[in-house]
């Protein structure tokens, strides 16, 4: 996020795209409510009628996967009606001319056709976003989980640059990070191409620094991303895999492939708090302590590094992940893993990671500190890009983006689009499913189907249906509702009983390598076809 969470409540205009904020990030959803209560304008772009739609001034119900078409159309209206912030563009950005040319080549009726949103509505949203300040954009997986997710992100950024809505309080581009510490895991270099603090592994200077600190020789070739790791495991290039608190058998795209890949491994070590579906396939399972049983830090979506404190002793014979890693490393004869407590690890982190330079346990004790925080004199950075951008020239870069359809489109055989979502009652796949009360509230998968499609398929509310894609089949109860538009169905992926990700497509975004979880083609069949059962009429299928 480029801003802090409370800043959202003070924005005059909020544009939510591809984020079911009220369900996935409830506390941020409440900031939207607060802002609207104070008179802010709200624009929502989502194929599904999510909770925040009720408060929206404009709701753009575009087809899944057509975000670029929509965003470009909005940009065109802004340029055409001269609502752009010319001085901001002149002083702080570059690449505007190429972007303008690309956008102007794109007319509104084309966008209307692709997105399914009326041109009038697009124009209304454009005027609202461009003329109400400060305006802020919130987005989440609905933007990134596409085979063209990077394009989507850039198209969002273009809009913010165009109107100068970035680098100010309550005004910016705010990707909402999913897992509690996904920001921290990225910051700490749990990525194939960077060391902690986004320092490139293929930069010799940087490597030298880490080689010196860690007293070893380091590999200069960037590694593989998650999906590529499973591909390499499948083809036998990767033979051993060490998994920390992850359940890819349920959460990765195209999970049948993932399961196959795992079965090809010679060694799978899983370190987790539960015997997850993935752990059941492991050779060694190491029981870890939960967040209540250890000290450390999490970094939230607004880059705030906050303390996690040990409340109870580890349950049973479990151990903290950091201890297990240290023990294993020491057992292999490695140096540099003699830590007595997490605070000592943080001291090493901050000595090597400039953006965390001023993060000490003492300083974050009360309320946390937002990075970049280069030294212990610095009080942290609530919003980014106040004076310059992180591009080499320090200027905001416009990127001309053209619309590409999703990797898998509907066909005669698979006529529906499946888009995945999260329920407010659960999180990913494991933790919340172990809480009895949460299961009482939502204990099974529901496929949301529009009444129009349901009528065509003669499906009744609550009956079990088969959802079939080119990769597999799952069963779930149908929930007939107008939340999803005709032609689109939607499912969560929290339930091991209904492994939604058996269906999803693993087409990757070429740069970010994110699988296209938000769009794949499916068909829905009734579990029992009464017409053949009882009347023997047959339907042409068996």
């Amino acid at each position: 996020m480029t801003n802090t969470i409370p800043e959202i409540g003070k924005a005059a205009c909020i544009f939510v795209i591809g984020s079911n904020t009220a369900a996935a990030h409830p506390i941020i959803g409440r900031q939207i409510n607060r802002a609207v209560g104070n008179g802010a304008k709200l624009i929502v772009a989502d194929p599904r009628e999510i909770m925040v739609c009720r408060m929206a001034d404009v709701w753009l119900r575009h087809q899944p996967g057509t975000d670029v078409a929509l965003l470009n159309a909005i940009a065109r209206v802004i340029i055409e009606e001269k609502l752009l912030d010319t001085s901001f563009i002149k002083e702080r950005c570059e690449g505007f001319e190429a972007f303008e040319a690309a956008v102007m080549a794109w007319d509104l009726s084309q966008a209307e056709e692709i997105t399914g949103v009326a041109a009038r509505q697009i124009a209304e949203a454009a005027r609202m976003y461009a003329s109400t300040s400060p305006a802020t954009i919130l987005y989440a997986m609905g933007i990134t989980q596409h085979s063209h997710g990077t394009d989507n992100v850039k198209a969002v950024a273009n809009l913010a640059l165009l109107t100068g809505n970035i680098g100010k309080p309550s005004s910016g581009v705010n990707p909402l990070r999913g897992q509690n510490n996904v920001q921290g895991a990225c910051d700490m270099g749990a990525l194939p191409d960077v060391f902690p603090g986004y320092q490139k592994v293929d930069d010799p200077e940087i490597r030298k620094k880490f080689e010196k600190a860690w007293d070893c020789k380091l590999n200069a070739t960037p590694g593989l991303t998650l999906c590529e790791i499973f591909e390499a495991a499948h083809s036998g290039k990767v033979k051993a895999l060490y998994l920390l608190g992850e359940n890819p058998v349920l959460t990765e795209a195209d999970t049948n492939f993932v399961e196959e890949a795992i079965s090809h491994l010679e060694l799978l070590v899983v370190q987790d708090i539960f015997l997850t579906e993935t752990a059941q396939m492991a050779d060694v399972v190491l029981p870890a302590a939960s967040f209540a049983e250890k000290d450390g830090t999490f970094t939230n979506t607004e880059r705030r590094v906050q303390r996690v404190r040990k409340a109870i002793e580890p349950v049973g014979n479990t151990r903290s992940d950091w201890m297990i890693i240290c023990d294993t490393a020491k057992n292999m004869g490695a140096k540099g893993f003699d830590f007595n407590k997490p605070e000592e690890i943080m001291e090493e982190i901050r000595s090597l990671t400039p953006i965390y330079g001023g993060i000490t346990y003492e300083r974050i004790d009360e309320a946390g500190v937002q990075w970049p925080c280069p030294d212990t004199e610095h009080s942290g950075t609530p919003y980014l890009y106040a004076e310059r951008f992180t591009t080499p020239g320090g200027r905001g870069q416009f990127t001309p983006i053209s619309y590409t359809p999703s990797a898998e489109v509907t066909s005669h055989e698979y006529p529906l689009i499946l888009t995945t979502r999260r329920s407010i009652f659960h999180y990913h796949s494991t933790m919340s499913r172990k809480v009895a009360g949460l299961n009482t509230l939502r204990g099974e998968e529901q496929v949301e189907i529009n009444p129009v499609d349901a009528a065509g398929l003669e499906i009744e509310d609550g009956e079990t249906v088969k959802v079939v894609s080119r990769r597999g089949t799952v069963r779930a109860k149908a929930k007939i509702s107008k939340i999803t538009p005709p032609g689109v169905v939607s499912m969560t992926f929290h339930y091991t009983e209904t492994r939604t990700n058996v269906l999803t497509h693993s087409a990757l975004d070429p740069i970010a390598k994110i699988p296209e979880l938000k769009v794949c083609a499916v068909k829905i069949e009734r579990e029992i076809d009464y017409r053949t059962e009882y009347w023997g009429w047959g339907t042409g299928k068996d």
Partner: protein
Amino acid sequence: MPNQPMTNHISLNINGLDVKAPEGATILKAAQGAGIYIPTLCYCPGLTPEGTCRICLVKIEKKKKLHPACRTPVEEGMAVITDDAEIELVRRVTLELILSDHDFNCLLCPKSGTCRLQELVNRIGFAEKRLNRLNRVAKDLPVDTSNPFFDFNPNKCIQCGICVRTCREIVGVAAIDMGYRGYELKVSTFGDKPFTESVCVSCGECVERCPVGALIPKRIEYPTREVKTTCAYCGVGCGLYLGVRGNTVIRARGDCENPVNRGELCIRGRFGYKFIHSPDRLSSPLVRAYDPLERIAHGIDETGRPGKPLTAPLVKREGKFVEVNWDQAIKYVASTLVHYKGDQFAAVSSAKCTNEENYLFQKFVRAVMGTNKIDHCARL
């Protein structure tokens, strides 16, 4: 906000004391600022004051009628009396009216001890005779127990409307409202359905604020100590306090000082901590026992039923896991990993683990295993 300009201060007089208050403040705020107590019931910080309960009535010089302190703004030169015989009487009658249709049975009420109504009864008191005359037939409405985390007992409800305002103004869900009229007035969901059939998202914010025992957690337990920490579910990173008793986490509540959530929590943060003590937790290292492990696994009981507590390391044997101790498990992992150094090895870190653990893990992968093949679920 620290960089906001100083607001103008207004001088007024409360109970003969000169008091200063910022412009726009209510009499209640001004009094509280000066350390003067005014009883309240339907007032709740952070919500629009509605002034329905009339417990906070005060006198303002040169004005007729009594005014609710919780929603009357201060004015320059105002003189306020918060406490005299007349006010006492009015408050007492008001309280008696509230009590008259309240299921007044503190001994059996789980809220007893932290109930605001009880507190007011102790402070203001009531005349038993008058109360008996006022007393209506005690309500006997059904208790809504549909929600797994809290109950709603309408017989205890005092119609203060705090829950309704909380759900509308803070949560933005507006699952509940005041339904019916007069004596029948009650908090209800749309169509008076059970909570679980309404749009309620079970966040528990209304339960947290209900002053009496009407909206009440299913189990009330008081922790012996509280530990300040951060929610482990989503990227918002709400600050919370885990309440601990013995070695068990029994409660979570929002941290009011935390700038991210200012005391609020969602359903997962407030109730989701229960996974910590799930019987499904792993409790021993497990190893799948192939040949080289016969020795290690020798004489160790087989476990490995999925869903079994995992609180010790486990190893698998012929498709089955055997429990081993930590030394064995670590030795096994370390001695096996040695053979996979370099490009045959890959690792997946976790967005659930701490920064320190992610740092150590990537250090392990890069410095010990000699590869950059590490990623985590950022993309999912």
